[in-house]
């Protein structure tokens, strides 16, 4: 379990670090403000932990798959507050921007699920065809 979780965590840590570097550079270039490295890195760690937990729950074999998917999204939400806390008013000039971000993340989450599902449905269709052929042969 820990091995699987660590694998997902490391991937997220890498991706979130890159996103944070880009955003911190944008803030520095546009507003000439240097954000605290330690503060940002703690944020990256927390967000990576949350996102890897969400992915782990979403992919969990146990339990109802729909419940797992919904739980996955609910778990992601607190990471947005961490994100806002890190960049504050430099990125979030209005309070409602966090809600827009929630919707955007929801849409991305939905798209990822849709793509994943479509890919696997094709695979399942192929396996069912093979099974049918095998039964006919017998």
């Amino acid at each position, binding site marked *: 379990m820990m091995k699987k979780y660590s694998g997902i965590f490391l991937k997220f840590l890498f991706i979130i670090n890159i996103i944070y570097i880009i955003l911190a550079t944008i803030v520095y270039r546009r507003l000439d403000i240097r954000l605290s490295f330690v503060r940002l890195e703690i944020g990256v760690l927390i967000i990576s932990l949350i996102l890897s937990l969400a992915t782990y729950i979403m*992919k969990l074999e146990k339990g109802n*798959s*729909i419940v797992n998917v919904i739980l996955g999204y609910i778990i992601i939400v607190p990471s947005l507050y961490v994100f806002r806390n890190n960049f504050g008013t430099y990125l979030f000039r209005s309070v409602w921007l966090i809600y827009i971000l929630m919707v955007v993340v929801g849409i991305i989450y939905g798209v990822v699920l849709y793509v994943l599902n479509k890919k*696997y*449905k094709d*695979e*399942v269709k192929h*396996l069912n065809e*093979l099974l049918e*052929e095998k039964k006919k042969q017998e």
Partner: protein
Amino acid sequence: MKIRVEEIEQTDEIEVIIKGSKDNEDVKEIYRSLLYFESVILGKTNDKTVSLPLSQIYYFDSVDNKTFAYDKNTVYDVNLKLYQLEEKLVNTPFIRVNKSMIVNTRKLKTFKSTINGRMEATLINGEKVKISRSYVPLLKEKLGGKR
């Protein structure tokens, strides 16, 4: 292919002779099928040891380092590890579908995918079995498709 049944009275033993090249794929497939009908696994149920024909077994699974075989209604305790079974059943319709399970592909009914990208198979007795992504290419090959 010619199929001929020679009737011999007063005998319970069946003898099958396959005439053809050993490298022929059809010959290999027939040999594998016959092996499947012929092979048995020893299993324990209610403190009795019974020999289980492979053709009756739906799947094997491993729980807490113990291996169990399942037929239509009964669970048998098998004295082999899952990897040993995997080696033993290499030329039969059995295949590993996840870390703890080996399934008889002849007992599979349908495949289904869930919303979170998991795959499961329904057996002909209605039981559901989780299928790990990493075993799908081998499963495809076993069912006669390409990896």
